[in-house]
């Protein structure tokens, strides 16, 4: 099924190429400049390995939180258009708008040792979150999940409710309807949301640094390692950024055939 595309399509194609170019160009700059001799050594260095592992763990955690908590929230947001929903939607969006460092302060104020929840955690469980790996995960989720929620909500809003009705008429309860009809049918939106959430969590560092600290091996994610390198050897920082980019590109390419490209 093909149709030949006239003028408008050509304009579209030009714009697309131009856009792709704009994204490719800065990256090209990085790639040209990076000290590639160092690449292999850095990729295999234990410090980078630790940071990479932590980055992958925390961003994956963010995706898990997105599905476990963000999806129900998105479903609720999509289920109506009350003023309350607008307010909650804005609340969910604020971590994106807030300068990440303020986001980090917010987390510290909530979950820090003297924070609203933090002091309660300390008194009752003798647990302190800041400067721990869980804190990295929380920061990642806090910064990443909003992207998922908004994407998922859009998918749910586009969803034709009558398929849910059809499933109900076939005896499927709410859970089955949601997981076996809604979720697969809005898979593209969920995938996009999960990707954005994951990527954002992966690239996050300001809030992490504020809330979780920058402790090698424990809370130092790749972007933090990168900022540390920035102080020592700026070229290394670029290289680490590229390592992060390369690894995440690798992960995405691996996932591609399982998740992104649907039959």
């Amino acid at each position, binding site marked *: 099924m093909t149709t030949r595309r006239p003028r408008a399509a050509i304009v579209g194609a030009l714009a697309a190429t131009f856009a792709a170019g704009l994204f490719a160009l800065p990256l090209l700059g990085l790639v040209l400049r990076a000290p590639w001799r160092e690449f292999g050594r850095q990729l295999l260095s234990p410090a980078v390995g630790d940071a990479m592992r932590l980055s992958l763990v925390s961003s994956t955690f963010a995706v898990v939180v997105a599905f476990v908590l963000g999806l129900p929230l998105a479903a609720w947001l999509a289920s109506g258009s009350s003023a309350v929903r607008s307010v909650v939607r804005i609340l969910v969006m604020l971590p994106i708008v807030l300068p990440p460092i303020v986001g980090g302060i917010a987390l510290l104020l909530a979950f820090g040792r003297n924070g609203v929840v933090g002091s309660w955690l300390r008194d009752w469980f003798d647990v302190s979150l800041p400067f721990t790996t869980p804190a990295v995960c929380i920061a990642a989720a806090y910064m990443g999940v909003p992207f998922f929620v908004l994407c998922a909500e859009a998918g749910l809003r586009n969803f034709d409710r*009558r398929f849910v*009705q059809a*499933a*109900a*008429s*076939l*005896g499927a*309860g709410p859970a089955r309807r949601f997981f*076996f009809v809604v979720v697969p*049918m809005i898979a593209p939106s969920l995938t996009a949301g999960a990707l954005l959430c994951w990527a954002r969590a992966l690239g996050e560092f300001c809030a992490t640094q504020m809330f979780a600290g920058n402790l090698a091996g424990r809370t130092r994610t790749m972007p933090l390692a990168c900022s540390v390198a920035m102080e020592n050897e700026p070229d290394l920082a670029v290289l680490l950024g590229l390592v992060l980019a390369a690894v995440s590109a690798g992960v995405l390419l691996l996932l591609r055939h399982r998740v992104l490209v649907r039959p």
Partner: protein
Amino acid sequence: MNLVADFALRRGSFELAVDLEVDASGTVAIVGPNGAGKSSLLAAIAGLLRIDRGSLRLGDRTLDGGPGGTFVPPEQRGVGMVFQDHLLFPHLRVVDNVAFGLRARGVARRQARDEARRWLDRVGLAEHEGRLPAQLSGGQAQRVALARALAARPSVLLLDEPLSSIDARTKVELRGELRRHLDAFAGPRLVVTHDAVDAFALAQRIVVLEEGRVVQQGSVAEICGRPRSRYVGDLVGTNVFRGVASNGVLRLANGGSLVVPAEPAGEVFATVHPRAVALYRVRPDGTPRNVFAVRIVAIVPAGDRMRVQVDGDVPLVAEVTPQAVADLALAAGGEAWVALKATEIALDPA
């Protein structure tokens, strides 16, 4: 287990208000003009629309008690529904679409698939089980929808135009298959259709819905014998008029009039079998008391006769032999004269 639907509901400016009892002894055909509320009725029974007034009961269970009352969610009502636009799940293969209801009731995947395959076989789509709905033709999709509804082992069947896109050949078979299934089915079953043949072939009882109200109901024979609205007349292929009769003249709502028997008078339904309508090339002289000029709209074969649809003061359908069509050189768009004996017009008080 009787289904008692005595309720009203609104959708925008449309109101559906029915008082209907459907027992499990036979299949009920719901017929009526577009927008009469047939699909809305099924949706309310299935629990996809809430009622605004009255109640909906199945046996001694209240399915919907109106606002604030009990409401049994659709998935607990055990209905099997064919939707007018099928609503096959686009992400599931045909076999999994059909197996969906069984899976929802906890049947193991393998067993559900096997059962689904048997159903697909019954609707003649065994070889399409692995396709996605987007790869089916319209009629194939409709058959899958039918199989999906029946396979879910429902206790109430709601079929919304289940055979509208099925080809003539398959329809004959599928209608027989469906008829057997419906006859053996233990619960209430409703079939919405616009096809008189489907209605007559599948149902024992017919409910006529117009503008959200039940205007007539009865056995197939009753409906055919005494249609009570122009719609039913068209459905069963009889001419029906409603009007006021007095002194042997029937004034129709649209302004025309007919000479009719003197009795009864007042608001009446007049039925005229198409066979009783005679057509002429030129104005006939003779006994028929109703003679008027008409324009021929269409000529359609019906069995070994031809049905000629004419338009004029009184729109009518005449049934004549193909020979007559040829002899009179009747053609769509042409003119003709209608003669209709007053004694052929049956009047029933409205």
